[in-house]
């Protein structure tokens, strides 16, 4: 019994860690899609953010400067996406895919030419990373059975970005449904003409959404390289941007469900790590690849059958043209 709780706590702990980049990317996508801009480029922004953060942290020695650089890289990418899809009314999917290619190529190229480690940035330690924070009384309560253990293992001992991600969820819900900005953001994703005739700039609102998107996904990228890991390696986002988009659809563009779905994907990932190499009755050892594929297979199944009718914001993906 005791052991089970320990095991479960450990799995949930790593679930939390693995879910953080998904949550941030998913919320990022939520802001832009609610404003009517499809952002396939989340994956690329995540990767670019991760690289910029690790490279900057390695050179300057500061994780915080790394974080800012990660946000900055995502902002540049968002700017390009905005220019293509808002000002020039281009196809948003194509712009996003182009940005993903750009990020994949650019990070490898710059990493190799700057650090000459086959695309890897130098190993980061100390102030170059975001280290776990021990919450008050965590050590004191450690010996208290169950509650103390949960507090010590699960609640305490994460880095600051993790806490930020979990706080960002209720904040997003509040912004979206309780503020003027949120009302307008939701309106511009449903019927931009209603916004325009109310005398509010559609372009400006959509850029505001893209900026929030960039900040969140940039932080998510920084988390990958300078919080969860100790450095950047090639293609380290590994499709998380796409999974975040899937999670967004599954959550029907709502922040609360988005958190749950991201945690579920994180949980699958955590389980996947733990059951690698273990013997199962009858089946025997399952190949690593099959287990690693689990979260992705689940994504397909969920998207294909279990989501039900997910109705996207109506104006999503459609450039706004005022003239008749």
């Amino acid at each position, binding site marked *: 019994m005791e052991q089970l709780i320990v095991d479960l706590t450990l799995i949930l702990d790593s679930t939390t860690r693995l879910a953080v980049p998904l949550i941030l990317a998913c919320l990022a996508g939520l802001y832009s899609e609610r404003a009517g801009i499809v952002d396939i480029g989340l994956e690329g922004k995540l990767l670019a953010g991760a690289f910029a953060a690790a490279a900057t942290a390695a050179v300057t020695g500061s994780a915080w400067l790394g974080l800012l650089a990660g946000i900055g890289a995502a902002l540049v990418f968002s700017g390009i996406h905005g220019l293509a899809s808002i000002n020039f009314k281009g196809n948003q999917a194509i712009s996003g895919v182009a940005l993903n290619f750009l990020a994949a190529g650019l990070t490898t190229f710059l990493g190799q030419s700057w650090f000459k480690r086959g695309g890897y940035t130098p190993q980061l330690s100390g102030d170059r990373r975001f280290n776990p924070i021990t919450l008050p009384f965590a050590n004191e309560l450690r010996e208290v059975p169950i509650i103390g253990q949960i507090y010590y293992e699960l609640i305490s001992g994460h880095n600051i970005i993790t806490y930020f991600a979990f706080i960002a969820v209720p904040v997003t819900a509040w912004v979206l449904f309780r503020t003027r900005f949120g009302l307008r953001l*939701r309106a511009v994703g449903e*019927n931009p003409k*209603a916004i325009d*005739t*109310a005398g509010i700039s559609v372009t400006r609102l959509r850029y505001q959404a893209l900026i929030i998107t960039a900040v969140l996904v940039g932080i998510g990228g920084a988390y990958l390289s300078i919080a969860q890991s100790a450095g950047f390696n090639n293609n380290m986002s590994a499709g998380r941007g796409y999974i975040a988009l899937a999670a967004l659809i599954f959550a029907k563009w709502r922040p609360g469900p988005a958190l749950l779905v991201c945690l579920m994907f994180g949980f699958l990932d955590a389980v996947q790590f733990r059951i690698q190499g273990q013997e199962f009755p009858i089946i025997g050892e399952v190949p690593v690849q099959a287990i690693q594929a689990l979260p992705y297979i689940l994504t397909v199944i969920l998207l294909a059958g279990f989501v039900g009718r997910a109705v996207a914001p109506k104006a999503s993906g459609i450039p706004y043209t005022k003239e008749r």
Partner: protein
Amino acid sequence: MTSPNPSDHQRPERAADSSLAIELIGINKHFGPVHANRDINLAIKRGTVHGIVGENGAGKSTLMSILYGFYTADSGEIRVNGVPHAITDSRHALALGIGMVHQHFMLVDNFTVLENIVLGAEDSALLRPTLNKAREHLKQLARDYGLEINPDAIVENLSVGQQQRVEILKALYRGAETLILDEPTGVLTPAEADHLFRILRKLREEGKTIILITHKLREIMAITDEVSVMRQGTMVQTLNTSDTSPEQLAELMVGRRVLLRVEKGPANPGKVLLDVKDLIVSDDFKVPRVKNVSFQVRAGEIVGIAGVAGNGQSELLESIAGMRDQLGGTISVNGNVLSLDGDDGAKRARDAGLAHVPEDRLRMGLITNFAAWENAILGYQDKYGSGLGLDIAKARETATEYMKKFDVRPASLDLKTANFSGGNQQKIVLAREMERDPDVLIVGQPTRGVDIGAIEFIHNQIIKMRDAGKAILLVSVELDEIRSLSDRILVMFDGHIVGEADPATADETELGLLMTGSHPDRVVTEPGTLPEHETPIQQTLVQMSPKNNAGRETN
């Protein structure tokens, strides 16, 4: 510009001597090569209902969009209450007390009524105070103008008439003194339109100024004090409504004399050409839309189907045309039962002697990216050439003939259909279907989005077909059109034929009651559809049931 706030924002000083709410002086607007507004002058008196009429593309909507700040004029001056203003955007117009109810509502469908009303006019970064204030304000507006609405209803669940009410409330909440309504009755049932007019009269009594854009001359005569006529981007004339007549207005709009009344002799019905028996059809979501419908159309008669849009007329038409599978019943053309199930149903129907002018020419009648000559043979292309080849020369010859006979302008074979006006597009479809000499012609919304001049032509063509001994089934949401063309009227409600009327004697109120399923003598009593209602309160409940979406308001 601060956000317009109904309670505390500053109204521009009123020039006390001026009785004019709005003056437009020398307005010009180009869209590329199109001169949409040419030197327009217009003066609108405060506290009046001012009508603006004109054909499609006459520049009415453009002019009003300029006044509302949605477009900016190339040149010209706008005076509000005697003071010149350069209205740069909609927010500016709202602050000057100008509100607009657009033809296509500018509402966010999945928002509540309250959210839609405060959108863009919020007082602070947090929503709650604004929402609470708006709720109180709405109650007051409801009391003052009879504009009752549930503030927490989701807009997409409201009937069209109610959505329009939300648009009006939106403008009033922002403190509008002048209200522009763009084709407000195009989507309403007769009863809903009456209700709207009552509201407009009430608004006028309270001193509001109303600008009504419409192409329905009957409405102009019924409610306006003054009327301005526009034609091809110019302002032709402004008249006192009491000094003019529909005939005069139509002539001013078109630039030549127009016959508003369809001239036709008595019908001469022959043998039954179209026989529909117990037809059951469902829509794309498997919801039954046509429920046991039976009727006949004889040679030499026009049978019109009246009804509020969405009561099964579309499915009925599509099913007869072979585009929609039947769940039950039979359709016979000229005595032969058509088996229309399957993908080539439309072709078999056509081969049996049935021609179909679809309701939505852009979606079903034409491929707008194709040239005129290609569209003129669409559906009959097998008759041009053999095997894989297409006899282009012959097809172009046919198209040339059609365009001449139906006066399609411009008579350019290679012009993309998308670039023709609505009336000319419709003429291409009509020519294609009528010139095949079918036994049965079914026509949906023959004059939707078509100019007054072309309407006259199209109506005459339909009468000509009738007089040539064809059986014609006509579906239209324009009750006037049904009444003037048909020899018999069938009223459809909730998938049933609920009544038959003689166009010569039927009165509008009675038809309206039938169309909304609330005629006391013709209550649908089939189990499982609508309950019988005897008392007024039960009647209201029936009208509010979700089944009866379109016809919810008949007060």
